[in-house]
């Protein structure tokens, strides 16, 4: 039809990266999910977050390819209007540099490929690692809900991120070479042990 825009194809990063693979929650990995959730509950930046049953995409276990061990989880909460609020937790005792970035890129791309109109994120103010990753790729906070959550013995600010598919496609295009399926070395931001 005249004037109708051609639909963009899927971002298509897939669920398998250079260092980690994302596995949807199934009865087979339920026990491993529970293990990661227990670790997440003890993290001051996270706390107990129930596994979501989002209509957009299921929760997924983050598994290290090198060791086969679960190292974290990603999930989302679906809000009205096809908004997916993204959650990531990587167990600091198991994870390595690069795992988080790969998981973030693959899962967020999967959310858009699964029909999300917007992806949002929430971060406790002291979770600087996540905020640095998002800042590095060009995603800045949209709101700061003051003293909104009680974590680690105090009321803390909750930093809100939100971005649409067009912005995300631009970010993926910028890093595509270093992302799963690209020709370059996997991207690594921040500190910690190197992956692989």
């Amino acid at each position, binding site marked *: 039809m005249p004037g109708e825009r051609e639909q963009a194809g899927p971002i298509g990063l897939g669920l398998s990266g250079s260092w980690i693979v994302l596995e949807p929650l199934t009865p087979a990995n339920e026990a491993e999910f529970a293990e990661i959730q227990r670790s997440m509950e003890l993290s001051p930046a996270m706390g107990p977050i129930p596994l979501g049953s989002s209509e957009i995409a299921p929760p997924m276990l983050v598994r290290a390819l090198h060791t086969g061990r679960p190292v974290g989880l990603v999930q989302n909460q679906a809000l009205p209007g*096809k*908004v997916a609020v993204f959650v990531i937790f990587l167990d600091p005792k198991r994870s390595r540099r690069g795992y988080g970035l790969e998981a973030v890129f693959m899962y967020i791309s999967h959310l858009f490929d699964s029909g999300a*109109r*917007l992806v949002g994120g929430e971060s406790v103010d002291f979770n600087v690692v996540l905020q640095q990753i998002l800042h590095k790729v060009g995603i800045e906070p*949209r709101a700061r809900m003051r003293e*909104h959550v009680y974590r680690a013995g105090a009321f803390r600010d909750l930093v*809100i991120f*939100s971005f649409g598919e067009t912005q995300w496609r631009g970010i993926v295009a910028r890093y595509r070479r270093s992302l799963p399926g690209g020709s370059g070395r996997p991207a690594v931001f921040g500190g910690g042990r190197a992956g692989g």
Partner: protein
Amino acid sequence: MEQLGDAAHAVQAPGPARELIAAQPSREPVLELDGYAWRRALPEDAATLDQLAAHGSNRVLFNLPSSADEFTARVGGAGLRLPMLCAYEGEFIGAGAFAARSNRDLNAILVSFFVEPSTATQALAMYVRHLFWSWPFHRLYAQLPLVDGGAGYLALLTAIGFVEEGVVPEHALIAGRPCDVAVLGILRREVEAWCQANESRLAL
């Protein structure tokens, strides 16, 4: 009336259950000040709530029930806790409730809508004060789509001490169109400071 009274003042706390019966929802005002009177909204008030929701952009701004029947089902339920009606000199001018309460984080979303938000400053201040008086909230917040009518509520909320905390672009879909949503919040200590500076009779 130049008085501010909470129904709970009428009972001894703690006290025998028999005395607490008096605090059950009734049609008696819970708060009265300068001609404004707030009372608990009951399921039989659904038609009144529906009429108040029909003013301006209230229904769109606050995602309110779409009919009196739906109000009947939701009043006092998880979506609209502590629902109350506000009258000014006998005429209903607005309503309030809270939703999405977090027991862990001690916060909740404020849902409060009026026939004319530009004249509702004192009425809303009374309701917000009552929420902080009745519940151990640390914070209340509001999420306001920036569509027609949104600016009036933005001005109302900031007039009683809410602080603008950001705008999330295109977060809401209204009539199929994305629109920005403003995030506002107020902390318990800010309510107290507002009352001390503006209306000491409401001080906690």
